[in-house]
């Protein structure tokens, strides 16, 4: 406390957002990650206006056209067409829509359920905590993709079910994180003080504890985005996720497998999209972690 770095600066402490942005913007990777995520988010939202074609539109005379820069490419199809003559660029742009939505839904579902279970388990303790944590242990002991496959097989093959399945596999991470955070916050004097004013469990959990647990949850949520996107793409690749003709990157990869030599762009480009978007979310998550976690600062 008495080291020179920990000087009391009562009057000029910067706002917490300013502080956060200062650290975040100095992290080049994080800014790149944010740019990538923002770009894909824009593509997803603006897909109907910027995509040159409908993603399901089949152009009869243009099967397996290569991208415009290679020999035989047509200027009308920038990134070429697939085996049934659909414009690859349009499909990739609409694919961003699916992937972003998938990531978002996976995070929302797993974050909501996971945070709630973590809060309840951590605050209540005792047998409630034990039951929740053992359930999570069981979920975590199964390989996540296997678990997702089982869930999809039981529920039926569809994108929505794939999202649900992947969400379930991501939940334990949130539960553990939130519970650990709650255990720390629960014993802090401000929570005890609040109790002596008569605060009940609802107020304690949602007004006092939850906001102080959110920073790591936001970071985990960002990383959960990439988990979600990867796993749903993997399910799509296995034919268990999005069903044709939905333009989904994993499904597109799977469909193009047989053309890997004759039309390599059909495999490369969706794969690249997955790679870049997942990388973007991971960079963003790491940057958020550095900026939000005070233990890593200084």
């Amino acid at each position: 406390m008495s080291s020179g770095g920990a000087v009391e600066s009562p009057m000029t402490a910067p706002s917490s957002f300013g502080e956060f942005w200062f650290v975040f913007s100095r992290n080049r990777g994080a800014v790149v990650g944010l740019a990538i995520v923002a770009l894909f988010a824009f593509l997803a939202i603006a897909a109907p206006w910027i995509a040159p074609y409908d993603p399901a539109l089949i152009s009869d005379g243009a099967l397996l056209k290569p991208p415009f820069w290679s020999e035989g490419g047509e200027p009308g199809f920038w990134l070429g067409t697939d085996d049934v003559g659909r414009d690859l660029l349009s499909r990739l742009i609409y694919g961003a829509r699916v992937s972003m939505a998938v990531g978002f839904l996976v995070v929302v579902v797993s974050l909501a359920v996971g945070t709630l279970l973590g809060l309840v388990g951590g605050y209540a303790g005792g047998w409630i905590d034990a039951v929740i944590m053992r359930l999570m242990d069981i979920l975590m002991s199964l390989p996540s993709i296997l678990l997702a496959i089982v869930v999809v097989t039981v529920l039926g093959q569809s994108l929505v079910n794939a999202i649900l399945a992947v969400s379930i596999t991501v939940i334990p991470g949130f539960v553990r994180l939130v519970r650990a955070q709650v255990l720390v916050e629960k014993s802090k004097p401000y929570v005890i003080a609040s109790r002596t004013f008569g605060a009940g469990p609802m107020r304690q959990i949602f007004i006092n504890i939850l906001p102080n647990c959110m920073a790591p949850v936001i970071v985990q949520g960002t990383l959960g985005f990439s988990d979600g996107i990867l796993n749903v793409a993997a399910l799509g690749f296995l034919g268990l996720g999005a069903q044709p003709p939905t333009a989904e990157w994993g499904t597109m990869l799977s469909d193009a497998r047989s053309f890997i030599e004759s039309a390599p762009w059909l495999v490369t480009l969706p794969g690249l999209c997955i790679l870049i978007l997942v990388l973007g979310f991971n960079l963003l998550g790491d940057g958020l972690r550095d900026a939000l976690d005070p233990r890593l600062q200084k």
Partner: protein
Amino acid sequence: MSETPFLEVKNLSKTYEVRRLFRGKAFVRALDGVSFQLQKGKTLAIVGESGCGKSTLAKCLMRIEKPTGGEIRLGGRRLEDIPVREWWRNVQMIFQDPYSSLNPRKKVIDLIAEPLVIAGGFSKNEIRVRAKAMMAKVGLRPEFEERYPHMLSGGQRQRVGIARALILKPQLLICDEPVSALDISIQAQVLNLLMDLQDEFGLTYLFISHDLSLVRHIADDVLVMYLGQVMELGSREKVLFDPQHPYTKALLASHPDFDKALNGQLTLEGELPSPLNPPVGCPFQSRCPRVMAVCRERRPPLFEVKSRECACHLYTPDPSDSARVSPV
């Protein structure tokens, strides 16, 4: 005493069960038969080293912990007969650490208003008016209303803690080391504030502190504790200026005062015993410079010596046991 004491603690005990890996359960007697009385408007200081039970005592009085034995009475009524919400309207607490005792995500005004919001029955406007009035009382300027705790200095945060504790107009305030985390130049400010508020609201203070100069300055009565037991209890003049118990004497001798040179002979030997394995007989016998055979066999009762209570065999009126042995 003729009138009913405002706070009366009788034979209070709190035993914690400690589960140890492979070694079965153990018990820690954090409080062991503690009794005292506190008159309205007075200040009682609880003094002792870590593990002496002063924090457990505060928790029991705040009803955060349930005592395992004994009795607490407030204004003559038993603790069990007072609903916990009503209790908390009368008894409040200031915490030692002004950093972790305030929710970092709340503004000053909301922190101070929180007890009123929880208590219910006040309009939004009323809550705001009362919170602002309390801010003025503790010397926080109006511009602090919208600030977050991390924008305040330690002293200002402690003022927020005091305002929050007082907003329900409690009668008894438990101050758990309220200034020990503050810089020296700020401690005097907060102490003055606490004294002013006591005069203005007629507050009763239970003041937990390890700083004997501070206790000497503000406490009417002093309770010295060691390993959960009362060693000496009496008025400030008696306990601090004419101590009888060897432990009180040692505490006073160890206290760094600059008008006295470090005196090697007066410092205590040895360490605090583990509360899991306290000494048999008197808890202080393992370190006492005047230990006798009887101290290792029987726990000394609290006994009135020179107008204060003192638990030491030196003053037990049964000389047959008091054969002196050489100090350890």
